[in-house]
């Protein structure tokens, strides 16, 4: 039993890492631009399908390298044309717009690639367990975790040490002052959006190897990412990171004892956290009101 529990905790961390990737992208966009991106799951699907479409030419590794930036480019275009006019307006509008956009992306991928799921194979050396005892730690899952860690590390470096990152963080705290200092806020938001979508695209490529690649793939992954953000505390990226890992472990462990609640548990966790700490685990004063 303890062994089973240990298995599931490790496993939950692996799953959680994936939620973190999704949630970080969402969180970046939410924090700086006040946009709840309902189309995030859609961009994940786009990332997956781009990888599927280009991998016959560039291979798995090429697709992994190219698909996220291509997705980010699409995201950039969407931001320019559709989201930009909505800054400064009630967040209701960007919510509705991305909600509609998610519809169009789902239907669009179905139109282009057909309703049938696509087979996506991963390199054989990744598609097997590392050892017989720890069979659930496959090369691919470790690889996914590694990719998530790399992505988070890069994001950390970006936010902490580059000019763009410092501006993004400053903008999150006080956009008006940042604008008053003569920084091009529009550009800042565009780039920030693109970074968020890049992460969604990366999630999509990684998910395609693990799940079935189909137009509705993104919908089920969106909600846990939301919860991760709320649990961690809206406005805090470390919070999002902790929230994602936490809900991954929680649902993994619950699946052992009470599988029917393995999804519900993350919502219960959210309720408990909100009761005890209304701003989430890492939320800061002023962020939520």
């Amino acid at each position, binding site marked *: 039993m303890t062994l089973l529990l240990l298995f599931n905790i490790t496993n939950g961390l692996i799953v959680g890492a994936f939620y973190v990737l999704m949630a970080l992208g969402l969180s970046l966009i939410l924090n700086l631009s*006040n946009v709840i991106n309902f189309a995030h799951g859609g961009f994940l699907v786009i990332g997956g399908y781009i990888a599927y479409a280009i991998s016959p030419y560039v291979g798995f590794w090429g697709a992994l390298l190219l698909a996220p930036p291509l997705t980010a480019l699409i995201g950039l275009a969407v931001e320019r044309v559709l989201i930009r006019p909505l800054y400064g307006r009630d967040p*209701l509008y960007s919510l509705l717009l991305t909600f509609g956009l998610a519809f169009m992306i789902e239907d669009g991928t179905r139109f282009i690639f057909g309703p049938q799921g696509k087979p996506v194979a991963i390199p054989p050396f990744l598609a097997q367990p590392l050892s017989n005892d720890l069979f659930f730690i496959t090369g691919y899952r470790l690889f996914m975790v590694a990719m998530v860690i790399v992505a988070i590390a890069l994001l950390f470096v970006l936010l902490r040490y580059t000019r763009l990152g410092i501006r993004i963080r400053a903008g999150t705290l006080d956009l008006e002052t940042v604008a008053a200092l003569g920084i091009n806020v529009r550009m800042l938001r565009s780039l920030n959006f693109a970074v968020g979508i890049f992460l969604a695209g990366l999630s999509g490529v990684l998910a395609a190897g693990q799940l079935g690649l189909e137009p509705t793939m993104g919908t089920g992954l969106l909600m846990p990412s939301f919860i991760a953000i709320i649990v961690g505390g809206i406005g805090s990226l470390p919070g999002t990171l902790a929230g994602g890992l936490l809900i991954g472990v929680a649902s993994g462990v619950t699946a052992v004892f009470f599988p029917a609640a393995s999804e519900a548990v993350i919502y219960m966790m*959210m309720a408990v956290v909100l009761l005890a700490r209304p701003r989430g685990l890492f939320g800061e004063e002023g962020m939520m009101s």
Partner: protein
Amino acid sequence: MQSRKLIVLVAIWAVLLLAPYWMAPLGGYTALATRVLVLGLAAMSLNFLLGFTGVLSFGHAAWFGLGAYGAGLTLKHLATSTPLALLAGMLLGGLCGAILGTLIVRRRGVYFAMVTIAFGQVFYYIAFQWSSLTGGDDGLRGFARQPIDLGVFRLDILTDATAFYYFVLSCFALAVAAMGFILRSPFGRTMIAIRENERRSRFLGIPIERHIWIAFTLSCFFMGFAGALYALVNNFADPHGLHYSQSGDFVMMAVMGGMRSFWGPLLGAAVFVVLQDYLSSVTVNWMSFVGLLFILVVLFFPRGLLGFFQRSRA
């Protein structure tokens, strides 16, 4: 001004009252009109909060769906009485909303939206998972709306689509009258004051949180009532009614019709339901068109159809 309002009001009710007669020649059908009424009521309930208090809940489908389950479970297990089912549905949706409301009234703006989405999904998962009670993904079935005994005669709302339409219309009228009454009361004025300037209202000594909570709760009760009617429409309740995508549809109806006006959401619901019904018959890619509609409305008609007309007239 007053007389023009009256004319508009008379026109709205005339259109609604005569719907079964003019829908069919125009290619509609009575069940569609019934659906418009129910979803319109839901959109108006949401707008009670969104349009008049300025608080965006993106999880309101939860109360709608709970209302449906409340009505369905009552008809199935407790009593075969339509009025009782409506009452039970309204109570279930309203009370759950009231309790959760206490948790979330202090959030604002985008965070309020986000937390309501998440809590709405809690109820979605409960409905989805608790198969023994709710029927899970297959939905709750095995109940049907019951004829209404009015003493003098029986109103057969089960098999007669037109009779059922008028039954729903009278329920709708009742709810809408209550809504209008509340909005005209001092409480309703306070709601609007909060919407216009929360900080100033706070300085005036208005207990903002309590007012928002009351508005939220009332809106949940109306929503539960609409949901209960929806269960009667389908003789069925299923988890999809609680899903956030349903919430999105309601918000869209309110915005598309015009969220600053009382009747706007009904117009929005009519356009949305009819358009979706039509599009999904004509093309399998209707989702793209509905999505495009969302985007176009947001970008070009943010004040909704009514807002657009009023402005172009002015």
